[in-house]
């Protein structure tokens, strides 16, 4: 049984591409066969995050338009042999994608992989709607701030109305991935709390990824953080999220709030002594 999963958010810069790469790699590390499909035609990034930018020959648009066969466009990861990438075209725009074309490619990918992960572009226009159209499962990436939460809410509404599953009268399975979460700032009331976000969005939680420099470092090195630095708290969070996606019951751990509290207390004392 193959699962088509869209990683989406509405707002840009919240961590869709990073999360697609990290979840995809984490699933592959757990033995699943995974393909990452970049839907951000014209502004592709997934190839960079996966470190495959110098191996792109054909892309999604070439496959849709029949210029290349699917196996020619798929790039197999050098670190994990059961992880592949279908890059987006950088020179075209989103009008090059069609509903039928995308549907055909996804059907073909479903025959080859356990997981088809669609990395959605930001926004609510054609690229984003096509990325979600054939999804069985949606991971909504949200930062704990009001604008991101409202945009995610908008996207959830579209997932419930503009996907093939919704059109057929079924519900699409939606999970919330909270990224760039800063427990210290949340404790000081400078950031929305996890409970507040969950209350507004009313979607089950897939995981909480704390703000971490490891994520950016890994992206700049062209590797998902779960491969580049498996010990990082962000990697642990993505690995746990991947296990939840596979149906395991993994208890949710809030990012190290107590540790942060201790730090701030130490710093507080230091400042008082000085």
């Amino acid at each position, binding site marked *: 049984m193959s699962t088509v999963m869209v990683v989406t958010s509405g707002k840009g810069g919240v961590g869709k591409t990073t999360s697609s790469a990290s979840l995809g790699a984490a699933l592959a590390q757990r033995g699943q066969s995974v393909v990452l499909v970049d839907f951000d035609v014209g502004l592709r990034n997934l190839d960079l995050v996966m470190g495959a930018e110098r191996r792109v020959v054909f892309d999604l648009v070439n496959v849709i338009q029949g210029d290349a066969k699917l196996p020619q466009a798929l790039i197999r990861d050098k670190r994990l042999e059961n992880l592949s990438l279908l890059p987006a075209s950088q020179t075209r725009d989103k009008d090059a994608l069609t509903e039928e074309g995308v549907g055909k490619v996804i059907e073909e990918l479903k025959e080859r992989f356990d997981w088809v992960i669609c990395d959605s572009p930001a926004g609510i226009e054609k690229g984003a709607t096509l990325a979600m159209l054939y999804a069985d499962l949606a991971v909504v990436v949200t930062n704990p701030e009001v604008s991101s939460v*409202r945009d995610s*809410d*908008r996207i*959830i*509404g579209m997932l*419930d*109305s503009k996907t093939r599953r919704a059109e057929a009268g079924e519900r699409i399975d939606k999970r919330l991935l909270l990224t760039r979460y800063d427990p210290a700032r949340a404790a000081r009331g400078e950031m929305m709390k996890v409970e507040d976000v969950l*209350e*507004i969005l*009313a979607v089950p939680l897939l995981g909480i990824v704390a703000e971490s420099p490891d994520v950016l470092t890994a992206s700049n090195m062209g590797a998902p953080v779960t491969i580049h630095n498996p010990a990082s708290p962000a990697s642990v969070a993505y690995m746990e999220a991947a296990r939840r996606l596979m149906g395991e019951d993994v208890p949710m751990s809030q990012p190290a709030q107590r540790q942060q509290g201790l730090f701030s207390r130490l710093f507080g004392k230091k400042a008082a002594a000085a």
Partner: protein
Amino acid sequence: MAVDRVERRSGREDADIFDLPTVRLRGRNVLALVLAPEFPMSDWFTAFDRQLDAAPGFFADRPIVADLRPALAEGGPQAIGLVLDTLALRDLKLIGVEGVEARHLAGTPWERLATRLHGRDTAVETPEGDAAAEPSAPAEPETPAQTSLLIDRPVRSGQSVVFAEGDVTIVGSVSSGAEVLAGGSIHVYGALRGRAIAGLRAGAGARIFCRKLEAELVGVDQLYRTAEHWGPGLHGRAVQVLCDRGSLRLSAFD
């Protein structure tokens, strides 16, 4: 002396302002029909006249919007006036035009027509050739009209629920940036964070109920309030909104 006169004058002006009646505005949705005459015009109008003859009542008292895009594209600016004149000969109630700018109409008898009508297209049943079908259609209603709407999921940002026929009940929250408009009352079993406007048809008797008031705007009949009007005292509480002697009142249940 001079000072006294100035004071008395300003006093009278104030009184004038208070004497003026309050101007109330109400909105109304009506169905306008969009006609887009195409070239060759003689063929199009012949076909249109045939439809008019078949169902003479169909266009009576219907507001008409003329979509002049095809006329402008093929006939140029001088075709616009001609098309509008020809439509007017058929006694149609033109309220606006589409696809042309105000400058195209300037100096013609049509310059007062609206050029920027808002709204979106909806499906319309076109009159069929059989004229006898027209009066018999409304004779017997098929099913009793639905008078309430139940929504069993949250209303998300950007979504709009419009139900002019009666009450709306939402089991879930109404998100920030979402709106619910009802002919009757609105019941929200969750947080109301977006907009809710009740009483489109029922008027001042309609109410809004919510488990948790975090709304951006609430309105009943022609009256409305935004969040800054009710302050933090009611925020987050279970509240009802009702019309009370011509003004909107919000009251907490707990």
